[in-house]
Structures are given as C-alpha cells and as structure tokens.
C-alpha cells in the first residue's frame, strides 16, 4: 500500500509543474492586458502603459516571471490581486468554503438520489420505471445550467415563494464567518432561524449543480449493476435462496460500487466547472464567479493562482479516490 501511495504522489510532481506552466501561459495567451482593460474607453498613453506594466512587473522576461511565480507558489505566496490588491491566497480561501459547501451538497444530492435510482433501474431493467429514470437522466445531463437555474428560480422562488431567490442566507442574519461554511457558522452563531435560512438558500443551487452529477451517477450505477447482476456469483447467491434485497444490496451493489466511486471522483472537476454558472445565477460568493471575473479583468496573479489551487484540489481529490479505490479493490494496488 505504501509503495502504491508513493507511486501516486510521485506522479503528482510533474502534474503540478505542468499545471503551473499551463495556468501561467493560459492567461498570457489571451489578448489584451490588465492595464488596457483597467483604463477602458478613457485609455492611457503608451508611456503610462509602459510605466504601469513595469510597476506590475510584466515588463520582465516571461521565464523570469514564470520562475518568480513558481518559487513564490511553492512557498505558498500566490501574489496580490491586481484589482483588489489583496493576497490571492486570502481571496481564494475566503471564497473557497462557499464553493466547497455547495459542491459537497450537490454531490451528496447526486449520490443519495442517483445511486438508488440506478439500482432500481437495473433491477427493473426495460420496465417503464427504468426507461423513465434513464430518460430523465439524459435530459438532466443535457440541461443548460443557466436555463435550468433560472427556471427553478422563477417557479419555486418567484411563483410559489417556497425558496429564496439567491444568496447564502437571509440578510437579516449577520454574524462574522468562523469556518466559512454557512451551515456550520449559522449553527455556531446561535441565532434563531439562521440555520434554517442557510439550508433553504442551499436547496435550489444544490439541485442545479447536482443535476448533471446525478444523471451521471444514476447511469453509471445502472450499467455497473447490470454487469454485476449477470455474474455467476449473483446467480449462485440467488440459487442459495438469499432474499432479493440481500443479493442486490450486499452481493451486487458492493461490487458495482467500484466504478461508481471513480465516477464520483471524476465529477469533482465537473462540479467546479458547473459551479461557475451556478454561482453566477445564485449570487453564490464562491471561487467560480471569482475566477470568471478575474479572467475578464486579466488579473494575472488571481487567474494563475486560482487555477493552480483548483488543480491542486482536483489532484488531491483524485488521489483520495485512487486510494479509496485501492482499498476497495486490492487488484489495483498490487498491479503496476
């Protein structure tokens, strides 16, 4: 197991270097620069432009800027945002808990509904239930997030008035953030009704962000289950006279879980991409919206720092998934 772990960690180093190069290059490949965009229609003189570029350190050779960025990043310094002038690290971790809370709820929603739906669809293969589930999953998978979000807001918040339109908590509640996770902070604040308010604000964004992972999990569970249900040992278990629920729940589902866990792990990247749109619609103060704003403003340090952090998180999650996978499936940790 230790060798497996070391092998996986060893792979992370070149990936990390690759990510720093990609994130550094990405924002610089885009035409335009932060000074031009800051000045807007008003414009700046070429001299003033050069002066500001020098002040930001963008006049130095690219390789020098890159190594500066790389070594600072290794020491945990991602530089200061050109716009807010605050450290990128602080900005990221102020906003990250909001994204994490939403992503966690979305994946929980996807698993809690998606897995049982997939199992039932597999067991009732070909039935109207199966077809409805799989049809709905396909629709969910193809749903444009922006449109889906607005539709839910108009229906549940606008017409029915069941859920709040946007934000993380009612503006009536005001307490300093402790953990940055609103569900936890609202409980810690001790203010009556704060937790319920935070929870009600999470409902729609969770559904919107969780829809695509839900569809993927449901489809993946169904196909994994179908495969496992056709195995000899399942037939044997049935022949032994075990109850159908025991055959499905214990013998089949456990083995079907392996590819499903991998799928869930892969959804982390999808979630972060979906978070950009979901956060924009629901005025959710997370990193998705922040990244988009930073790209539009050509805030070089914020974009390269943000991308690096996101990549690091995705790598970490994938490492954890791989380790979990290794724990569940011994074949993985013994091969290669």
């Amino acid at each position, binding site marked *: 197991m230790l060798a497996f772990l070391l092998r996986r960690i060893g792979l992370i180093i070149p990936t990390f270097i690759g990510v720093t190069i990609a994130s550094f290059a990405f924002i610089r490949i*885009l*035409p*335009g*620069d932060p000074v*031009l*965009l*800051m*000045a*807007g*229609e*008003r*414009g*700046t*003189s070429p001299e*003033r432009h050069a002066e*500001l570029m020098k*002040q*930001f350190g963008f006049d130095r050779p690219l390789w020098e800027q890159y190594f500066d960025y790389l070594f600072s990043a290794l020491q945990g310094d991602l530089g*200061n945002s*050109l*716009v*807010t*002038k*605050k450290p990128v690290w602080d*900005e990221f971790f*102020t*906003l990250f808990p909001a994204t994490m809370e939403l992503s966690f709820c979305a994946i929980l929603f996807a698993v809690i509904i998606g897995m049982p739906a997939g199992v039932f669809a597999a067991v009732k293969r070909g039935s109207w239930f199966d077809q409805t589930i799989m049809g709905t999953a396909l629709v969910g998978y193809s749903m444009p997030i922006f449109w889906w979000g*607005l539709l839910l*807001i*108009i229906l549940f*918040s*606008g017409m029915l*008035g069941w859920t*709040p*339109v*946007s*934000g*993380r908590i009612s*503006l*009536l509640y*005001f307490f*300093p*953030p402790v953990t940055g996770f609103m569900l936890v902070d609202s409980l810690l604040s001790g203010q*009556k009704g704060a937790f319920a308010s935070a929870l009600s604000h999470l409902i729609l964004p969770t559904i919107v962000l969780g829809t695509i992972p839900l569809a993927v999990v449901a489809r993946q569970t169904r196909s994994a289950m179908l495969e496992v249900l056709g195995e000899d040992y399942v037939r044997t278990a049935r022949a032994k006279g075990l109850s159908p629920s025991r055959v499905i729940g214990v013998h089949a589902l456990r083995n079907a879980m392996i590819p499903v866990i991998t799928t869930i792990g892969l959804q982390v990247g999808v979630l972060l991409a979906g978070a950009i749109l979901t956060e*924009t*619609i*629901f*005025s959710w*103060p*997370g990193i998705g*919206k*922040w990244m988009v*704003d930073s790209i539009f403003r*050509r805030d070089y340090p914020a974009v390269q720092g943000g991308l690096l952090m996101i990549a690091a998180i995705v790598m970490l999650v994938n490492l954890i998934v791989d380790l979990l996978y290794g724990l569940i499936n011994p074949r993985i940790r013994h091969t290669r």
Partner: protein
Amino acid sequence: MKRTKLFLATLLATTMLAAGSASAKTLIYCSEGSPEGFDPAPYTAGTTFDASSKPLYNRLVEFKRGTSEVIPGLAESWEVSEDGLTYTFKLRQGVKFHSTDYFTPTRDFNADDVIFTFERQLKKDHPWNQYTAGIAWEYFDGMSMPDLLASIEKVDDHTVKFMLKRPEAPMVANLAMDFASIMSAEYAAKLEADGKKEMLNQQPVGTGPFKFVAYQKDAVIRYAAHEGYWSGKQPIDDLVFAITTDASVRQQKLKAGECHVAPYPNPADLEALKADPNLQVMEQEGLNVGYLAYNALQAPFDKTEVRKALNMAINKQAILEAVFQGAGKIAKNPIPPTMWSYNDAIEDDPYNPEEAKKMLEAAGVKDLKMKVWAMPVQRPYNPNARRMAELIQADFAKVGVEVEIVSYEWGEYLKLSKEKDRDGAILLGWTGDNGDPDNFLAVLLGCDGVGGSNRAQWCNKEFEDLIQKAKTISDKAERTKLYEQAQVVFKREAPWATIAHSVVFMPMSKKVSGYVMDPLGGHWFDGVDIAE
C-alpha cells in the same frame, strides 16, 4: 410549570428581538457586482464608486442630486483668481468622520485631510502614493490632474489653495468626481503607525452619509447611517448591498421583496416590471453617447461629403428599436441632451438613402468597400454592437457600400482603434465623468486626442479654437455659447455618425421614496426612505 416559564421567557425575548429589528429601517440594494476596493481613487468602475465614494465619502464640491451642476460639499465656498490659476476653498467646519469599531476620530475634518487626499495621488514620493503593491491613480491621471495641478497649499485649518499650471474651467467639476473623495489623514496616520496601510482600501473611514460595517466578498456589504453626518442623519438606519450579478435574478429578487432597489434591468423585462403593482420604474437619459467614428485621415473618409452621405444612409430609428429595444434616444449631437450647452437647434442628418447614394456618386465614390468595427462588450451606450454593425451593414449596402464587420478582444479593440492608419469606421461611445462638455468635446474630438481618444482622427481648426477658448474662461454663459457653436461645426463636418444616447431604467419597490436618478450613472442612497 418550569417549561411554561421557559416558553414565556423565550417568547418575550423573541418579541423584543423582533421589535428591535422592526424599528431599524433597512434598505436593500441588489447591486450588480462587487467593489474592487473601498478607496475610490485607484479605480474607475461605477460599481466600485457606488459602494465606496457615494455612501462613505464626501468631496469638496458635489453634483447637485439629479443634475451635473456643481454645488458646495465639504467646501462651503470657493473663489477663482483673475488669471484662473488659483482656486481657494473655504472648508466646512464641524464635519465628523465616521466612528467605527476600528477607528475613533479625535478631530473634525480640516485642511490636512484635503492635502492628504490629493497629495497622495499627485506626488510620486508621497508615503501613500504606493500604499499597496501595484496601485495606480487611474482617474486622477486620466483627467490630466498631474499636468494641471502645480501644488496644493494649506492656508489655515479651514482654507486650502489649489494652484494650477494653466487655466482650466472644468477644474471644479473634476473635484466633484469620485477620485476626489476626501479621506481622513488622521486615520491614515493611525494605519501607517500600525503598519496596516492596505486597510485603507478594506476598512474605509469617511465623512459620508453612511459608515462601513462589514463586507463579505462577492456577497453582502453592510452600512449604517452616520449618526453625526454634517447635513443630518439619514432616514434609513441600515443600508445593505446584496451583490447579485445576473439581471434576471435581480428582477426576481425585487419581485420577491428580497431587495428594494435593483439596477440595470434587462430591456426585455421592462414591461413586466412596469406592470407589477408593487414596483415603480424610474427612467432617465444617461450622460452618454454611442457613435460610429470614421477615420478622417483616410480616403475617402477624409471628405466631409462622403461622411455626410454615409450618415444619411443610417436608419437610426431601426437601430433604436432593434438594439436598444426602446431604451434609447436618437443622438444628433456629440453630447447628451441632459448636459448643459446641448444645442437643440441643430437638425440631424435626415435618413435618406437615395440622396446619400447621389452624394456618394457626386463625390466620385464607387464600389466602396469598408470595415465597421463592432465592440465585443456590452455598454450602456451600445447594448449590442454586433447587431448594430449588422444593421449599418445592411443600410450601407443599400447605397452601394460593402461593409465587412470586424471585432477584437476588448483591450485590443481599444488599443488598435486608436491608430491613425486604422482601417474602417469604429463603433464606440463615451460616458461622462464630470458633467462638463469639455469632457466630451475635447477628449473625443480635440486635436490632442488624434492617435488616442479621438477615434475619428479628426482635427478641425475652427472646432479646436472654440473648445480651447471655452476651457480657459470660467463664465458659464460664455462657455455655453462657444460649445453650442462647436456643435454646429461638428454637425457640418460629420466626423461621426451620432447614433444614440441610452435611457437608464431603475426599478424599485413602491415603498421606496426620495430616490433621485443620477445623470452621471451613480447610485445614491442619501435622502432615500423606505415605508415600513
């Protein structure tokens, strides 16, 4: 028994809490974006000013609400010397800075604060010139203040003198702009002593109608009424900015009562908003202009009759309907109708494709192929440049001119369009900074702007003489005459096709009263009240 007591106690406490919160009047504004910081001077975005300079600070002079007229602010009065080079301001006394949990002022506003505010932007060696890494005084520089200001002197605690290098009539209007918001020198000194200079941009202290309470990035900004405000406490107790970037979501929040005022509605939603019995929609013409600038240095656009003919080929009414969806007004002058010196006697070039075709033939222009540049971004003065370019393309085709539409990334667009040898006519626009006609006419059409902000690359001696003269005299009536004449020259020479001025809409709850729309595009909440 015990349980009943506990229940009663809880009930009592809840009631008291509810009563406490009900007596505090809170106004919620669904703002369209996050501020970049709370020190307005390094920034240029209206969103940042709405959250910083407007609620938190005052300036020496202010724009009278709802107009671009300059009135006394922290300066009670001012005098301009004969030669127009010295401006002496008498400062208001008894003005209090905000007391917050991070700063308690020990003195009232005085001349030191004024000196600090401007010197940090003017002097490169000032300890606050670079108070955080990579700071730039965009607006101060953009309004050419470093070339204009010789020095600022404290005469006594309540008198300050601004010495200019040359006479400049719009100087006073410049001082009403956001970058001129007066900061507390005492607070700055404290931050410097604590080694926390950067907090000036994060925990602001001003003299304005509201004081800063808290900001949760990208989510909420909270302000409280400034108890000791020099012109009296505000009718509301708390002001909250709920940051909501999507226009459709802002509209839903307004309808659901989650906010009271929500700016920048989608034009398509206006009908529904106006029909809602709980809402009111205010409107005002924006202080802006959207235009198509030819390149007057390049043939055949160097000929006035060619530019004039093309102007007559554009169906502006169709553009207004398709691009502005009614939220605009046809422009005939380079300055908007709400600005002083607007020359209403001028007649716009009539839409007449047949006549335009004849004029082009008479000018010897045949089979003309040209480029029209379409902006890649949405702006109040042009909500959809691509669509506008397509309509112009169709209009020009009718007079035998073939148009190719080009576009670039915004930063590149702004840069490339400045070049003197730019190929083609460009769609662009301008939003006023200080309500002075000089801010449009000199910046956009003056000879100094050729190769820069004068996208038409047009330099006309008659026009230039008029606007230069108007800059040096401070008598408004006389300046008005000169600008009116300049507009006549502009229309005759046609360096641009003036397209439209936008109309800005402001939906809000009917409970809100006292809100006045700002022609300069800002959002102000002093004097605003909300019914319980």
